[in-house]
């Protein structure tokens, strides 16, 4: 007889939702979290697309510590001395099931854990699992926590992008440096009304998401981001690890510092107080580096299974984690009921993922990571081209104007018309 029906390792979006579902199904579930509280080791950019959260917690808008609903999408091409921004807002973005919110994981993850605990899940904090317990056949039958061995019918790994356990669970090798990015972020405190005004939001409950490409990473693979919280701004840089390690023109923290000082960003955070400096990896390789999500006695959900996509104009991870956590919890509960938590018994989890947006979306954008990594002109070339074109368009200095075609062609030719066509075609194909 096992100590618990299920053990969940990690108390992030996937872990707490899985534990919630298991507890709701009447299972004895233990969540082991290495932080002193849920979220203590977690970090996001970040924004959560709410659709999957809504399915688990229909009233989350009233109860969850979400920050601001995103009502402005901004994307920018940044050169050292200029910045070109597209700003989009629409009523559609606010509709139920289509809405998204800035979140801070310290508070958000504690709320998620509370929901699982209220359903009866047990939590232990401050313990890192270093080893999975296996029986003679190699089936995962529990975890080793310090000196203690705790057994369960099934173990759910939800321990994040830098999991040291997926190798033991399903033989997943350490992901390659080209498939992961490093994020560095500062949380910058400002009065709520100042944030509202600066991002042109309608109220203190609304805010903006802003992604940057170009000078924010000094021209190498990556980008900048900004999300509005209630009384702080999350500002950061995400940079491809391999690209930055091999030919980054500055360390990632210096990229962030320079982004903060860029004339397009500095006014936004003026007078703000840095209250946290954080770092985290992003599994941008997505499905290309996804390990087996089911093993004998074990399931993987969230970042540890590389459930993430970065399209340049959109970054997703938490909505996948919530949905995968829900499916993992439900499928694990059914497998326990059926008395079969072998790899075959847990296989319905993989089928559920395949039939849902999680694996469908990840598959749809399968080619994107490779395209983005080699989309060098997006990070150095196009931002400068746009700058020159916009300078030509907007500046009046008294010299007689040229026909638009004549003034624009030399600018486009610097990048190369064939290159431009090639990139457009590549983007169309990947997206």
């Amino acid at each position, binding site marked *: 007889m096992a100590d618990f029906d299920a053990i969940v390792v990690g108390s992030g979006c996937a872990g707490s939702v899985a534990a919630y579902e298991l507890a709701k199904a009447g299972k004895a579930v233990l969540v082991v979290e*290495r*932080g*002193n509280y849920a*979220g*203590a*080791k*977690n*970090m*996001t950019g970040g924004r959560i697309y709410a659709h999957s959260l809504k399915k688990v917690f229909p009233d989350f808008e009233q109860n969850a510590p979400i920050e601001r609903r995103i009502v402005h999408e901004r994307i920018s091409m940044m050169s050292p001395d200029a910045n070109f921004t597209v700003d989009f807002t629409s009523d559609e973005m606010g509709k139920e099931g289509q809405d998204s919110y800035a979140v*801070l*994981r*310290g508070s*958000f*993850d504690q709320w998620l854990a509370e929901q699982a605990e209220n359903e009866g899940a047990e939590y232990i904090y*401050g*313990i*890192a699992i*270093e080893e999975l317990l296996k029986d003679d056949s190699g089936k995962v039958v529990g975890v080793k926590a*310090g000196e203690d061995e705790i057994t369960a019918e099934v173990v759910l790994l939800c321990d994040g*992008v*830098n999991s*040291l356990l997926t190798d033991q669970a399903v033989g997943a090798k*350490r*992901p*390659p*440096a080209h498939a*992961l990015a*490093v*994020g*560095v972020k*500062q*949380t910058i405190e400002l009065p709520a009304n100042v944030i509202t005004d600066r991002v042109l939001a309608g109220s203190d409950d609304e805010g903006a998401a802003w992604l940057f490409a170009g000078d924010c990473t000094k021209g190498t693979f990556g980008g900048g981001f900004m999300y509005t919280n209630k009384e*702080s701004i999350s500002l950061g840089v995400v*940079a491809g*690890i*391999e690209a*930055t*390690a*091999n030919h*980054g*023109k*500055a*360390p*990632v*923290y*210096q990229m962030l*510092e320079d982004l903060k000082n860029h004339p397009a960003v500095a006014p936004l955070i003026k007078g703000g107080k*840095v*209250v*946290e*400096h*954080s*770092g*985290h*990896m992003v599994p941008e390789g997505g499905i290309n580096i996804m390990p087996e999500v089911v093993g004998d006695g074990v399931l993987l959900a969230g970042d540890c299974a590389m459930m993430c996509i970065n399209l340049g104009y959109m970054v997703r991870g938490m909505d996948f984690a919530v949905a995968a956590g829900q499916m993992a919890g439900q499928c694990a509960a059914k497998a326990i009921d059926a008395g079969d938590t072998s790899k075959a018994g847990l296989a319905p989890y993989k089928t559920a993922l395949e039939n849902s947006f999680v694996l469908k979306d990840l598959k749809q954008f399968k080619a994107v990571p490779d395209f983005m990594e080699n989309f060098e002109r997006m990070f150095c070339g196009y931002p400068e081209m746009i700058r020159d074109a916009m300078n030509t368009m907007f500046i009046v200095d008294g010299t007689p104007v040229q026909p638009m075609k004549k003034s624009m062609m030399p600018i486009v030719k610097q990048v190369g018309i064939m290159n431009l066509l090639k990139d457009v075609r590549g983007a169309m194909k990947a997206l």
Partner: protein
Amino acid sequence: MSDMKITVNVDEYLAINKYEVDESNAHIELVDDPSDAEFDKLIRVCPAALYKRDDEGAKTFDYAGCLECGTCRIACGDTIIKKWEYPQPTMGVEYRFG
């Protein structure tokens, strides 16, 4: 690394963070005499600026301000990172905002 202009002192930012530093146990260890090229990779990718070189090029590494992101493990896990573990129970960084 002399070609890189570093104007920011990340240690000042790290001082704002909440840590419980495990003085008795380094959770990350480098090989003896790490190569310049590999070390410089970590200077570029570590978000906490734990990997540093002084004006003479001498290398220093201090795990105390680690953000536990694992980037150095991914970048140099096969080369100069000899050991990468999570800090001992209740130790390390504690995000209040995240």
